[in-house]
């Protein structure tokens, strides 16, 4: 329990406060966030546990968990919290800290999807859905995942084969180059 003896037990709480404006000290551990969370059965840390671990400064457990990556950002927890803590926003902040710390993420599949998605935007200015799913399945070495949906979606005209590319695609590349992963707080 070394984290309990650390010099500043509020270190993580303060860091979260500074990047999200949300104060986990207000959490009373009522468990409402967890009770309403649609993804909680698949989470390795429940939402109320996430808040508790921030309170006791256990950064290591938090940045390695899969919870922060499979949170669907549906915002149910944030809407229901009696202390009005925006828990979904805290999940966002933890993801940022995990990426910043460059530690292996607890949910590689989700991050891979996000990376391929952004790559599609960078190259075209828009997302090409068919290319996105195919590239994703190839990257995960599961080329035939959901292949059964291909023909039916194709005949329904739901798969754009070529995809669109915007005129100012160079502008989009510039925007990507100029953007920082974590907004600098003043």
């Amino acid at each position, binding site marked *: 329990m070394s984290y309990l003896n650390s010099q500043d037990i509020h270190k993580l709480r303060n860091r979260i406060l500074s990047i999200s404006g949300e104060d986990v000290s207000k959490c009373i551990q009522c468990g409402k966030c967890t009770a309403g969370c*649609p*993804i909680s*059965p*698949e989470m390795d840390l429940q939402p109320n546990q996430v808040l508790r671990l921030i309170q006791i400064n256990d950064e290591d457990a938090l940045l390695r968990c899969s919870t922060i990556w*499979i949170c*669907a*950002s*549906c*915002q*149910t927890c*944030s*809407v229901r919290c009696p202390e009005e803590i925006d828990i979904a926003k805290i999940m*966002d902040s933890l*993801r*940022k800290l995990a990426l910043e710390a460059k530690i292996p993420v607890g*949910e590689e*599949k*989700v*991050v891979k*999807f*996000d*990376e391929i*998605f*952004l790559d*599609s*935007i960078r190259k075209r*200015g*828009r*997302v*090409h*859905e*068919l290319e996105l*799913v195919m590239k994703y399945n190839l990257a995960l070495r599961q080329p035939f*995942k*959901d292949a*059964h*949906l291909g023909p*039916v*979606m194709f005949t*329904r*005209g*739901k*798969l*754009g084969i070529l995809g*669109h590319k*915007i*005129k*100012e695609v160079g*502008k*989009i590349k*510039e*925007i*990507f180059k*100029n*953007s*920082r*992963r*974590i*907004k600098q707080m*003043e």
Partner: protein
Amino acid sequence: MQVGYYPGCSLESSAREFDLSIRAVFEKMEISLREIPDWNCCGASPAHYLNEELAMALPYRNLVKAEEAGLDRVISPCPACYSHLKHTHEEVIKDSGLGDRLRTIVGKEYQGRTVSKHLLDFIKEDIGLDRLKSSMKSTLNGLKVASYYGCLTRLPGVDIDDKENPILMDDIIGALGGEPLDWSYKTECCGASLSVSRTEIALRLVKAILEAAKVRGAECIAVVCPLCQSNLDTRQGDINKKFRTSYIVPILYLSQLIGLTQKLGFTQLGLNRLIISPNEILLQKGIIEK
């Protein structure tokens, strides 16, 4: 009436019928839609998760483009696109430091003049139910519709309805002569992009939504989100296989339901593009003829 339009990437492919039906229905009501010139993807959740500045810079460029084209109101049918435009607009108005930073990233300045609308509040407030009704040639004949909103009402920047018990879509369906059902899964999560990355989670969530609608006697589910539609429609086969169920619930876009009352054609509204065909129930209720 002319209004700006930001269809977003899904409406160009998997949700083509959402785009087709909106355009057809608006034309019927003599509202002309003008696309934001050369619009780009809003960044959706991946930008939000991986790159905070990018998540605002991408919508910022769209706001600049809309403003340059003189579009004072822009409709975004996709909840994610809508939330990103509206949220970015609000943050820039609130925080001039952020505005300066985004201006530097994008290389152009947004003056803050573009008002974002979703389809639901645009129909209810800007068009109004009376004008909607006057465009109708028939009704939904009491079709039992479960309105499904997903996370729309809770997304950042969105403040159009009650977050947990929204009624905008129910009101519109009532005006169309349908029977909006009272059910408790209106805002449950569909799993969003977990449908691709962690499919088993999405299957569990979608099954619960279908079951709740079925218990209430829903003859179809109405949606206003490309991702909700895709997860609920496309995954029914997988769900039936995995859980040995037999769901056959048509998932229609609200705009398709509106178009049916305006007597627009089945293919014109893209109803032929849905995976679970609504043909049978629409015939049975006398909403379409053979």
